């Protein structure tokens, strides 16, 4: 592999904004997100519920429901192709072919009236123009790949357990070898033993097919297991991003620190959990200043004035936090 290939950029997003215009107000779900993902890399997108992770992934697929969703973006490229200017019928060629998504809830992600085999075969028929018979054959291969006997291709989703449904959803997403895979909490609906199996499976498949991946999760353990890079999202913004080591071992943002402090510590079981106090701000009514300031232990008046911009700390590590204007500032991150 040449150096140039290694640096090939698969996903490039600049200033992504998504809002949902509902009757109760305008939900500002994503507020200016930049993301860059290189070939074969896996980015973990973490953040608590409502941070805008799913919405970001849907925006990449151009699948934010409209109404109520409105997407604004300066740049959205997948594998060098400009996705923003594509008309709907061209987008259909991109979806499932260049970029696929594994959805959050496997229980509802499959169509109950079609066999799982047909549901896997469908994208092969669309993108690789296979005959029904060949597509079925390949669908059987895909099932085996995710550890389900191919004979079960003729069964319906209701005949499958949750873990098997998740495997089917993965098989659908991988059927056409996409360059980019968006995995939206692929394991949260599963029990722990199955979780580990599915993660391992995804790691294997990623290696095998050179897929780049965005792994959306709020499970930091899962991030440590599969991700090369991490982006921490809060109230629709990225507050810290960097390599796995940057974010895990050289944590800088108070919110990221809070996330780690909310985890139980096995070495010191008597230590009290320190969950982040308070709740995420109402996305219909975000504060002018840093959205995390109301919950932040380090917040000063300066934090309430303006939204902090992402700044580079090192080649790979970036954070958005006003407190670092003071060169003396540091967080008291507990060492795991």
């Amino acid at each position, binding site marked *: 592999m040449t150096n140039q290939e290694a640096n090939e950029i698969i996903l490039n997003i600049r200033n992504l904004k998504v809002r949902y215009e509902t009757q109760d107000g305008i939900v500002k779900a994503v507020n200016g997100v930049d993301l860059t993902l290189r070939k074969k890399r896996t980015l973990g997108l973490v953040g608590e519920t409502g941070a805008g992770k799913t919405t970001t992934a849907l925006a990449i*697929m151009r699948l934010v429901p409209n109404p109520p969703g409105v997407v604004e973006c300066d740049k959205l490229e997948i594998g060098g192709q400009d996705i923003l200017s594509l008309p709907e019928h061209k987008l259909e060629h991109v979806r*499932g072919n260049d970029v*696929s998504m594994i959805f959050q809830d496997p229980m509802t*992600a499959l169509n*109950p009236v079609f066999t799982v085999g047909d549901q896997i075969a469908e*994208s092969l028929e669309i993108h690789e123009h296979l005959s029904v018979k060949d597509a079925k054959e390949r669908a059987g291969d895909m099932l085996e790949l995710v550890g389900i006997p191919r004979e079960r291709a003729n069964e*319906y989703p209701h005949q499958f357990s949750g873990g098997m449904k998740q495997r089917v*959803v993965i098989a659908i997403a991988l059927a056409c070898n996409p360059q980019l895979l968006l995995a939206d909490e692929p394991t949260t609906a599963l029990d722990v033993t199955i979780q580990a199996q599915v993660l391992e499976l995804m790691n294997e498949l990623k290696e095998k097919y050179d897929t780049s991946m965005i792994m959306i999760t709020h499970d930091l353990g899962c991030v440590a297991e599969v991700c090369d890079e991490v982006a921490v999202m809060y109230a629709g913004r990225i507050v810290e991003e960097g390599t796995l080591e940057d974010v895990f071992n050289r944590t800088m943002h108070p919110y990221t620190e809070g996330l780690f402090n909310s985890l139980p510590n096995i070495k010191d079981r008597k230590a009290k959990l320190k969950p982040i106090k308070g709740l995420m701000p109402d996305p219909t009514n975000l504060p002018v200043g840093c959205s995390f300031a109301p919950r932040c232990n380090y917040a000063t008046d300066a934090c309430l004035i303006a939204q902090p911009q992402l700044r580079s700390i090192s080649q790979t590590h970036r954070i958005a936090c006003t407190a670092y204007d003071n060169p003396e500032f540091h967080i008291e991150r507990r060492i795991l």
Partner: protein
Amino acid sequence: MYRYILKRLLMLIPVLLGVAFLIFAIMDVAAGDPVYSVAGADATPEQIEVLREKMGLNGSLIERYIRYIGNLLRGDLGTSYISKLDVMKVYLQRLPNTLKLATLTMIVAVGMAIPLGITAAVHQNSIRDTTSMVLALIGLSMPNFWLGLLLILFFSLRLGWFPTGGSEGFRSIVLPAITVGTSLAALLTRTTRSSMLDVLRQDYLRTARAKGVSERNVIQKHALRNALIPIITIFGVQFSNVLGGSVLAETVFAWPGVGRLVVDAIDQRDIPTVTGALVMTTMLVTIVNLLVDLVYAFVDPRIKAQYTK
């Protein structure tokens, strides 16, 4: 699956027997003793007894019922008091007309309702949705005979495209089918819309879109198939109704179907014809119900799984 069908067919027998008994008992109570009216005012009691026996009206209700069922099994529904014709023959003569009208009516209804309902659901709260729903409301509230008369005025008398009535081949059936079909389409449109609205929210449509399925196929293949069950239910009820004959349309268009046969027979207190036609219609309706249940299984594998259990 076959065992389920067999079970359902066997269950038809008690249902039919029960319904036949009800019809039989009600007609017995409601119509009074027809022997006197047939015999005339100056018949002697002996003549009346002879006539009663000849008409098969002797014995208790139960005895007569059992005799009736015995005859029914041989395909004999008795003879009309009025025309003295074989009731089964008369019914079978009318049945094809009703079947033709019912079929075309349902084609018209479905042909209007499914596209309108889908459009309304896909463009919820838009002008297209409102238009569809207003059309459906008009269809629902417009009296059948009135629409029938309007259609006759315009298409028969003004344009001369279709006959005003009677049964002269396909052209005679068009206006009555549109008349009845329109009124049925109203409910069917609303059902399609609400069922589609339910399905359009489902996550699996997003999965389909994420696969690269075209929006048209997302709606027509993935969504519609899931929305079909309530639509088929309403369809089955409506189809059953029109199989009993669409009396108003048959009257307005002088269409010789089963509905008019029954209504005329009621007018003339022609009990064998009324009972016979109702029993036959019941049989048809139960068969349609069975077919509807089988279609459910065909559309939704989860229902099929229940049947085979």
